[in-house]
């Protein structure tokens, strides 16, 4: 490794356990001054957890943090900030009800003694920051009125304004347009020149190779590679990310693909901050087919699934299931007709943590075990036992709360809940997120088996390898638009990646209102 940048921060043999899973396993990571330290890995590899440890959001279960040669502890984020560590979070951490300037100076307000906050000074400084980021956002505008990309810029400005020595950026470009990304890179170059250590997390390999100086690759919570960026290439990165033993994707069993069972036509969903988060999307799905929907964060994939399930009142477009229009039905009606969704966020949308495993499994299909108004325990228990065996759920006692299971088994319970409704079309939003390798293999196997039984499956993923390995057809979304729809046999990784950026291409002006936002 080149000796021109000294190590400012070291994570020494750090592990982090959550109930049920080990997110980070004995990771040692060095962050170098005046350089862009890239961290890369698949979803669930532990990147965000590591960064949260550095930023004081989480405490390491084992191991220590060494800053400038001294062991330090960050029990709270305030302690990390006091040591000069700033972070741009992946999930935006902004107060929508406050102005841009107030957000940038939150907890560090510019005050004038007893006369309170000096709003004018804050706005002046905020305006300067905005100028530096070339955004033209009014510092007095409310954050909730900005579109996502602009909010991300505010989040970045907030971190830059802290004059941090170590700046962590967790997927800072996920919602930025190509021009905004250019500006961000210029700012990063500035900060680098000032000696700031930047930790940069992203899924976009081309970005990493362009701006990175050092790279650390994570896989399943372990560091699998650490090198200077100029010594490595894309192949090396991908190999370290995926590992020698290719993932256990269940092979297709060569079943026949049937008739069209589901159609979506001209689906649109307006965004609160202007523009469309789903932009005139339409597709067909055949029985027994797995349609993979690839795209970056914020491309509108989850929103599309929400529209299909009838969870968005403002959505427009037509849906047909088995030749019957279902556009006018509510979520309950659509589930009864044979749609089922496995949501991306298990904790918030997939399960009721305090209810038992059994109660969660049968929650959506209770009507099947009911005579009159009475739930027949025996029938219910049989269904639960069946689901446990079918999906290979490892549970000691189905009367325990579902939250006592590991992430992978929780995900299987959510899938089991959906399957017990006997769906014809299954929508899966990031089905492999946050679960361990073994559970992933089980989930993929289940998808294959269900497709072979004639279910139509639409699954959303940000994992390129996953979409290539599992799909019969691949749809790519970018900035709300469906930018590609191709058979697996025609698809290449390059084509898919290109399509996932097409929505941000400067050639086609995005349907977003002008950049200037007034208060």
């Amino acid at each position: 490794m080149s000796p021109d940048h000294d190590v400012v921060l070291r994570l020494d043999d750090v592990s982090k356990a959550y109930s049920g899973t080990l997110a980070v396993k004995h990771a040692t990571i060095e962050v170098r001054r005046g350089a862009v330290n890239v961290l890369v890995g698949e979803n669930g590899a532990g990147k965000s957890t590591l960064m949260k440890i550095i930023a004081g959001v989480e405490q390491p279960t084992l191991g220590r943090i060494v800053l400038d040669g001294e062991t330090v502890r960050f029990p709270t984020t305030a302690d990390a900030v006091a040591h000069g560590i700033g972070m741009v979070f992946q999930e935006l951490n902004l107060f929508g009800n406050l102005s841009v300037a107030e957000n940038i100076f939150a907890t560090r307000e510019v005050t004038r003694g007893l006369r309170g906050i000096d709003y004018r000074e804050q706005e002046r400084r905020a305006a300067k920051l905005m100028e530096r980021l070339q955004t033209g956002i009014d510092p007095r505008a409310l954050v909730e009125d900005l579109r996502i990309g602009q909010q991300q810029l505010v989040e970045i400005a907030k971190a830059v304004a802290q004059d941090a020595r170590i700046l962590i950026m967790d997927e800072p470009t996920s919602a930025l347009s190509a021009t905004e990304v250019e500006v961000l890179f210029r700012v990063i170059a500035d900060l680098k020149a000032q000696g700031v250590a930047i930790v940069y997390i992203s899924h976009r390999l081309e970005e990493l190779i362009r701006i990175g100086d050092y790279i650390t690759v994570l896989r399943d919570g372990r560091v699998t590679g650490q090198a200077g960026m100029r010594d490595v290439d894309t192949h090396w990165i991908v190999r370290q990310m995926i590992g020698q033993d290719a993932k256990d994707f269940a092979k297709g069993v060569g079943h026949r693909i049937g008739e069209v069972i589901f159609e979506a036509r001209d689906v649109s969903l307006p965004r609160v901050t202007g523009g469309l988060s789903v932009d005139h999307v339409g597709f067909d799905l055949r029985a027994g087919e797995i349609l993979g929907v690839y795209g970056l964060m914020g491309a509108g994939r989850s929103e599309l699934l929400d529209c299909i399930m009838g969870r968005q009142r403002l959505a427009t477009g037509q849906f047909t299931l088995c030749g019957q229009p279902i556009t006018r039905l509510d979520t309950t009606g659509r589930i009864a007709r044979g749609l089922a969704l496995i949501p991306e966020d298990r904790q918030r949308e997939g399960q009721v943590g305090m209810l038992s495993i059994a109660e969660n499994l049968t929650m959506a299909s209770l009507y099947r075990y009911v005579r009159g108004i009475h739930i027949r325990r025996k029938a219910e228990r049989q269904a639960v036992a069946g689901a446990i065996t079918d999906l290979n759920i490892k549970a000691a006692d189905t009367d325990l709360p579902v939250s006592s299971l590991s992430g992978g088994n929780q995900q299987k319970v959510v899938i089991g809940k959906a399957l017990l409704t006997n769906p014809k079309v299954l929508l899966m939003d990031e089905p492999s997120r946050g679960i361990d390798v073994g559970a992933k293999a089980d989930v993929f196997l289940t998808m294959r088996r269900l497709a072979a039984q004639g279910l139509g499956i639409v699954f959303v993923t940000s994992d390129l390898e996953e979409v290539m390995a599992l799909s019969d057809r691949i749809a790519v979304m970018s900035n709300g638009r469906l930018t590609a729809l191709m058979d697996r046999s025609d698809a290449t990784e390059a084509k898919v990646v290109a399509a996932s950026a097409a929505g941000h291409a400067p050639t086609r002006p995005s349907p977003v209102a002008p950049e200037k936002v007034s208060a």
Partner: protein
Amino acid sequence: MTAVPQPIPSTAPSGGTLLLTLMKLRTFIALFAVLIVFSILAPNFMSTANLILMAKHVALNAFLAIGMTFVIVTGGIDLSVGSIVGLCSMVAGGLLMNGLALPIGYTVWFSVPETVLVTLAIGILVGVVNGLLITRLNVAPFIATLGTLYVARGAALLMSEGRTFPNLAGTEAHANQGFDVLGGGRFLDLPYAVWALVVVALAAAYLARSTPLGRHIFAVGGNERAAGLSGIRVNRVKMFVYMFSGFCAAIVGLIIASELMASHPATGETFELNAIAAAVLGGTSMSGGRGTVGGTVIGAFVIGILGDGLVMMGVSSFWQTVIKGLVIIAAVVVDQAQRKLQQRVALLQVARQS
């Protein structure tokens, strides 16, 4: 943040599980404790007459608390039940004494069963208003039911210009005699009110444990978004719990009016607080998703017996209030401790298996 299993000495788990069992049974323990203490300290406490009297007192709060339990399990709150009690007792009284004067100069008289049905319908109707405010207009349950608390109380006062309907005996001419049976009648030496409580409590417990609607109530309270995505019609579930709470409050209004054979518009003031206290004492979680009908009924008994026992001991009513408050706080503190311990025991069990 997620709790991480702490290293615990190997003797702890068995002690932990024992402690946990004790904590889970705390409402029972509290009930026996108050019974034993008062049977020693207060003469005549365990006499049949006194026990029946207490059961009758407790029943009123228990009805409200059962309705309240369902509401709280969905993550809401119903502050309007006390006012519904007042309004319903005024409705029943008004119909029996004055009939329903139609604007065309003709007065309709209702028989006692009809009066009961109309009164119950009024209680449910206030629940419908609460439910609509909460589900359709997105008003927070606390605010929506605070609003109906005032409106229903005001309506009760308006019905008689604030006066009492003094005599609900009815007349032969109007064929509406016999209202006193509800509050005064007995079957097997137990007042009808207590039997009614038995029926309502059993029905509510069955609803909670063995019907889809019951499951849905718990699912909505545990995670509303997940419930909606599982095809549960969240708004209908919420409508039901507020209507049921209104129904329970109407029963209480009827019983009180019938006992007194008079209805006063201030009837039921602060009843909602007693109902909430009973539910919480019985292990209902204010954040939703947890609670049992049985626990709530026991909670109502603890509060009621505590009150009556202290009166019999001659403890000043000021001290009674203080003691009631302390018991409620203690219940919630134990509840929190239990949840923490439970989490730890569960994590330990998982760690053992892996």
